[in-house]
């Protein structure tokens, strides 16, 4: 969107659409009103405890996926985390008992400080998750040893694969992505990822390749396992089913195809009060490439900063754990059906 100078590249415009003030006449009840029926009578959502420190290291990616909420791509070379901000992250991680570091992007491995940062997090004894798009592993010879690097540092690899068929995967992620993803999965399997009893966790992320909600996560996982083993002889541990958020490129797609109102109504109709308590913003803090703090990666992409000191240099865990989470209409994406988070279903 940024590269084609779309209005939606401006997060202000996205928020206007979501709040019924632009591009569509549709107005939906406010998320903060709807959660009042879900044991949050004041319409406010607060953190439980910060357990996941999610670092979005930048927007540079070797892919340009049609649904990407980050609007990432090969042309996003400027917005990448500096060594100084990585060092700030490490200071915080050393100071506080936050057990998990969740590294995302773009393709995080393309950031020149990635491997150093992973090694430093490991020294601090953190559990490290890397949101690897798979194709980066085969994109360049210098990345071919990533599976060994991940294994050496005990990194949990979490990879998007929207379908077990090339047809559906390539429709969302680009021509040839499925074939390259299978090659990368074989390389990960070869060092023990996705295999029983190796302790090397390799999880897949499924998100619908269209305007429908994900089906049952356990059933999808079983079918993905069966089909990927049968057709390609590759394995993984678990599948996380994630709902598409009506922001960024997916919002653009919804508006372009006239599906915005129907999709929002689908999210509202599927609102699950039981999913609210488990949403990821309650135990996660999201850091952007330039060091700002957000309630989640989606708020980050809408530039909705935390309602507390909001930069790494002012990090205040107590204030963050007392804050009100910033809510908006896209939050319906995390509470539809069985709920949705970076770790899949929540209810």
């Amino acid at each position: 969107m940024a590269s084609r100078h779309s209005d939606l590249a401006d997060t202000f415009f996205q928020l206007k659409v979501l709040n019924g003030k632009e591009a569509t006449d549709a107005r939906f009840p406010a998320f903060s009103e709807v959660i009042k029926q879900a044991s949050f009578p004041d319409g406010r959502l607060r953190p439980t405890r910060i357990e996941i420190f999610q670092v979005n290291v930048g927007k540079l990616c070797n892919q340009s996926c049609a649904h990407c909420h980050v609007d990432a791509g090969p042309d996003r070379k400027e917005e990448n985390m500096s060594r100084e901000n990585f060092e700030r992250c490490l200071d915080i991680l050393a100071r506080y008992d936050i057990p998990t570091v969740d590294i995302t992007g773009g393709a995080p491995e393309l950031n020149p400080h990635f491997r150093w940062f992973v090694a430093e997090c490991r020294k601090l004894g953190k559990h490290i998750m890397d949101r690897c798009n798979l194709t980066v592993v085969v994109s360049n010879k210098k990345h071919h040893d990533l599976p060994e690097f991940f294994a050496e540092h005990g990194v949990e690899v979490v990879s998007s694969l929207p379908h077990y068929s090339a047809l559906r995967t390539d429709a969302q992620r680009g021509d040839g992505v499925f074939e390259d993803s299978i090659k990368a999965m074989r390389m990960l399997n070869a060092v023990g990822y996705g295999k029983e009893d190796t302790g090397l966790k390799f999880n897949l992320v499924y998100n619908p390749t269209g305007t429908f909600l994900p089906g049952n996560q356990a059933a999808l996982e079983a079918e993905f396992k069966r089909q990927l083993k049968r057709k390609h002889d590759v394995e993984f541990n678990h599948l996380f089913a994630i709902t598409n958020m009506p922001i960024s490129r997916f919002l653009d797609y919804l508006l372009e195809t006239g599906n915005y109102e129907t999709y929002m109504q689908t999210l509202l109709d599927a609102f699950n009060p039981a999913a609210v308590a488990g949403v990821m913003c309650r135990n996660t803090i999201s850091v952007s490439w330039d060091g700002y703090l957000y309630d989640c990666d989606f708020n980050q992409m809408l530039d909705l900063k935390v309602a507390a000191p909001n930069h790494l240099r002012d990090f205040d865990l107590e204030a963050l754990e007392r804050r009100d989470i910033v809510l908006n209409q896209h939050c319906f994406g995390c509470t539809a059906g069985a709920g949705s988070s970076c770790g899949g279903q929540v209810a």
Partner: protein
Amino acid sequence: MSKKHYFDPEDLKKFGNIGEWQKPMADKFFSWYGEVFKEGALTEREKALIALAVAHTVQCPYCIDAYTTDCLAKGSDEEQMMEAVHVAAAIRAGSSLVFSTQMMNHAKDMTM
């Protein structure tokens, strides 16, 4: 009737309203319907594919829309969905063609 067409996609959302005029029967139907589509010896995904195929056989536009969405949500892809429709079409075609044995029998009986 104010509308100029017989099928309106919006009517699918009103399916639950059939209980307005016969609630006990509607309740039994929806309860049974829900039970049928739960995972059992067949997975929910397999049942959705069967439903999609049958929807084409009975030519129900509401069912085609509903089970296209359901098949996609449950993880089927276009290739699998089209194969399911071909199964339905093959049975439909075969069920006509198999009657040609009657035609052949009859023709053979009355010709030299």
